[in-house]
């Protein structure tokens, strides 16, 4: 069976500088695939190519067997893709419930929205904050709300850009458990992450990007024991 998401020879240049160069990546249905790499490796750019913020300079992106290289973001979302951006970008002036409502109302029957909101609030542990403006939530809670909004779309493929940035170790662990539970329920994940403990907790496969190119790929154990990876990633050998 073909991969759920297939990126073939994707490149993106900004004014002649290649942020992503000739990347091939396949995410199989059921995977939790993690993208790692030092800052400036091209991870976020690659994400933006997948969600359609801009088209690639070269290469192809295929999702569920359909070429979506030129499709706009809303069309990709309609096909079952959903993203949580790196910086929390919840609608700060709206309440938590309204944030979820926006995410839901486009594709959930009107009478079912309330129940679905309650279910998501419960999952996210935000029930008691439902009527607070999202801008007043802690950073961690905003991250969770953002994940909740991405989940509200019931995506086939969920893209998470640094879901644990700014979270405490306990919150990070709970996020990892949430990711695994969602995966068990059938959501495929592509995740950009820095926190290696988190990657170890969840990943079924890891790809390392460096200077816009694929540097290494394999299981988490293969990657952490690869001395070349430790060198580019941390500048020093990585023991853990």
């Amino acid at each position, binding site marked *: 069976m073909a991969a759920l998401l297939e990126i073939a020879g994707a490149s993106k240049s900004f004014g002649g500088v290649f942020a992503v160069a000739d990347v091939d990546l396949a995410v199989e249905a059921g995977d939790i695939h993690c993208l790692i790499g030092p800052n400036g490796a091209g991870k976020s750019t690659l994400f933006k190519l997948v*969600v359609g*913020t801009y088209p690639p300079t070269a290469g192809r992106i295929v999702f569920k067997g359909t070429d979506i290289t030129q499709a*706009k*973001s*809303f069309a990709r*979302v*309609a096909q079952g893709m*959903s*993203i949580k*951006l790196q910086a929390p*970008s*919840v*609608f*700060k*002036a*709206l*309440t938590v*419930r*309204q944030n979820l*409502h*926006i*995410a839901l*109302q*486009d*594709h959930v029957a*009107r009478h079912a*929205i*309330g129940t679905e*909101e309650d279910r998501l609030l419960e999952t996210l542990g935000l029930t008691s904050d*439902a*009527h607070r*403006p999202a801008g007043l939530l802690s950073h961690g809670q905003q991250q969770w709300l953002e994940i909740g*909004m*991405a989940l*509200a*779309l019931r995506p086939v493929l969920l893209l998470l850009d640094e879901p644990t940035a700014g979270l405490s170790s306990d919150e990070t662990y709970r996020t990892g458990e949430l990711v695994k539970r969602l995966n068990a329920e059938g959501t495929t994940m592509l995740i950009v992450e820095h926190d290696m403990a988190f990657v170890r907790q969840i990943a079924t496969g890891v790809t390392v990007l460096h200077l816009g190119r694929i540097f290494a790929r394999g299981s988490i154990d293969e990657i952490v024991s690869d001395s070349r990876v430790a060198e580019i990633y941390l500048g020093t050998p990585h023991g853990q």
Partner: protein
Amino acid sequence: MGLIVTPFLLRDRLDLVTLMTNVMILSIFAISFDMCWGFSGIMSFGQALFFGVAGYVIALIGRDLDFSAIWGVLPIAMLTGLALAFVLAMFLLLGRRIPSAIFVALGTLTGSYAAERLVSGWQYVGAGNGLSSIKLLQLGSFEFVEGFEFYTLALLNLLVIYLVCRFIVRSQFGLVLAGMRQNEERLAFLGYRVQVFKALIFSFAGMAAGLAGALYSYHQGFIGPGNMGPGLSTAAVIYCLLGGAGTLIGPVIGTAVIELLSYGLSDIDAIRHFWPVVLGLVLLVIVMFQPSGLLGLVVSDRERIGSFGASGRRSTHG
């Protein structure tokens, strides 16, 4: 309510009734800008284009076809504004690339400026002199002259536009608009066709501006190139920002304050000459120190946002 009793208080002062009528017509215009900027984040710097063109269209229909029945001309004016705004939206909003706010602001401004220049040199529509002695607006054999009757008509129109806009911004559609002006990219990633939403609101606002333009030219008996140029377009921005963008009632307050001040101060020569400068300074002060406008002095941001659709109703119960 104050607007309803005003004409009874001012029965003997026709000039003031006329002034208040003007305020209400311009308020419709200011609300149309608020729908674009305050609610949808579209910086329309050419809102007068729809106002002016609709004003010209009904003036020409009166002159060349001798027709001014209210059931025909007001819908025509609204359709004119709607169609024109839709065409502009096709170019500015629905292109392949996602337009920046600056691109839209310059595009609408250019449209407004180009129309003013074009009309200034076009003899058929009166060139620089505009069109005057516009045929009076009719309902059956009744003619709306300025004064109490026109005041009532303007008030009714303002109320209808206000209520329709209020309904829109408090619906689920309004919730999307609220999301749109806070974070467009996020909304696109939730599967919304953001640019289509913008084009819809922009067209609707063009329709409201067209209605205001028609009422204006019937009321004044005159429409000129200046009524579709950047000057009036900027006035809409000032009315709205002064009163409080994103509130619907703010633009009405802003229009009233500016028009009443302008009327009161116009007798004083020293100020009249500098009036545009005063307005410019007012705008600068608002943007720098009171971005939420006059209304922001009395209500908090939280209250201004209000509630939307089903989720809003839930929040009142829970």
